[in-house]
């Protein structure tokens, strides 16, 4: 039986791990993620979740234990934030290189120093080269649904890559929203048990990860890229299937809002994307033809979908909750990279907003839109990258 509960993003992530029937969870607490692992601990100790829970002594060990468990044939889950994710960095590479479909909730938090517990995407986006699929959620329901969709995607033999399900710390993690916890039988039908392609088995012995000379290495990396390409195709298919079965879907790679006849499209990820809808509605009331496109997935980067999105659009404004020091926001860079070489590509402007958890309200987004439209009128983007709300 499905039921609706009202709970925080963190707890919902715990419900999702339970619904997905994760078999081994290895995790280490960090603000603002801790309630995820606390919720799972409660489920396990109450006997409601049949999983081995390893209370590891660091995040590096959390990812490593997940790798060991996945290599031994179990469906695994973990969660972390900021410093914890950074500490795992080496093992993120390991998980993707070993083609293990680990799913991890990343409760986005800005990197230190200075110490901060509030949200931006510096933690997850600085891991964008590690071969992990990255989803960005904008509601607690989406967190629940995305964890399940992630397992379905990752465990597919065309993919076999790990995935991060990212959601902003405090904004979603500690905010309660109504969420429909779907019927377990229906979930089991959508997500069958994990069937590994390779597993440690004394009946079929091999060594994993032996040294490889230069004559082999490139091909293994090519396989990962190929898997990402496959994932890019499968993400909208799985989202649609999920929508058919359960009534929730998110537009595949990109959740569009009023983009059909837009002159300007605001691109963003996470809750800035949901906040942008209010800005869009307000501006539309004033006759401004603006739309919002919230990227639900950053890796694989939905190049094709971006190209489709901006056909007939005159300007895009990318709002990044991260700065890649030495250049600009990663969303901005990758949007432009997707459009290079396209005939008639739109003007593009980048905005850095909301670092360290600074609020990005619909007012801010309206200002971003108005500034962008000003440049559109003159035909020249005066500031390639604008920092929003920086002190004078």
């Amino acid at each position, binding site marked *: 039986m499905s039921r609706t509960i009202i709970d925080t993003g963190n707890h919902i992530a715990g419900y999702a791990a339970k619904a997905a029937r994760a078999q081994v969870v290895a995790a280490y607490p960090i603000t603002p993620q801790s309630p995820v692992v606390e919720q799972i601990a409660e489920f396990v100790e109450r006997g409601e979740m049949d999983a081995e829970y390893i209370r590891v002594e660091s995040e590096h060990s959390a990812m490593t234990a997940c790798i060991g468990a996945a290599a031994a044939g179990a469906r695994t889950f973990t969660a972390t934030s900021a410093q914890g994710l950074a500490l795992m960095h080496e093992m993120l590479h390991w998980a993707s290189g070993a083609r293990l479909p680990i799913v991890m909730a990343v409760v986005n938090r800005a990197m230190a120093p200075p110490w901060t517990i509030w949200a931006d995407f510096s933690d997850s986006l600085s891991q964008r080269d590690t071969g992990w699929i990255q989803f960005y959620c904008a509601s607690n329901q989406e967190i629940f649904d995305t964890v399940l969709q992630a397992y379905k995607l990752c465990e597919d033999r065309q993919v076999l890559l790990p995935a991060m399900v990212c959601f902003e710390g405090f904004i979603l993690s500690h905010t309660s929203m109504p969420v429909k916890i779907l019927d377990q039988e229906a979930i089991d039908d959508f997500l069958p048990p994990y069937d590994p392609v390779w597993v440690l088995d004394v009946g079929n012995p091999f060594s*994993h990860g032996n040294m490889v000379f230069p004559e*082999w290495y490139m091909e293994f990396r090519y*396989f990962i890229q190929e898997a990402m390409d496959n994932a890019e195709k499968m993400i909208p298919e799985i989202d649609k299937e999920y929508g058919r079965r359960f009534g929730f879907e998110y537009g595949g790679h990109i959740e569009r809002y009023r983009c059909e006849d837009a002159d300007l499209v605001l691109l963003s990820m996470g809750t800035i994307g949901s906040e942008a809808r209010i800005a869009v509605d307000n501006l539309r009331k004033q006759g401004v033809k603006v739309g919002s496109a919230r990227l639900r997935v950053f890796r694989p980067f939905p190049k094709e979908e971006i190209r489709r999105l901006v056909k007939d659009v005159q300007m895009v404004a990318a709002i990044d909750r991260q700065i890649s020091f030495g250049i600009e926001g990663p969303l901005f860079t990758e949007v432009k990279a997707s459009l290079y070489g396209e005939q008639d590509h739109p003007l593009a402007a980048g905005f850095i907003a909301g670092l360290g958890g600074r609020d990005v309200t619909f007012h801010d987004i309206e200002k971003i839109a108005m500034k962008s439209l000003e440049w559109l009128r003159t035909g020249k983007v005066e500031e390639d990258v604008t920092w929003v709300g920086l002190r004078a």
Partner: protein
Amino acid sequence: MIKAPKNLKDMPITPLSRPTVASTGITGFWRTFRPILEPAKCNRCLLCWVFCPEGCIKRGAEDMPEIDYDYCKGCGICANECRLGAIKMEREGL
């Protein structure tokens, strides 16, 4: 000896290696000295067998040690440990 894959389609998606003798080649080529066993002096105590790091001394008929020269690296531990001097190290192929 399993065949090394040649084409993309023959490769596993992640580096999986199968148990193989001679994984690093016919290591007998490494030798400078080779152990020669004199069966007449041997009392089949098997110390040479247990101490060979390569596992290339076999327990032959009635536990008479048999050295596999394909893989013996010529370290000399067997000769050094034999209490009866039944194994001598001889210079290879001079």
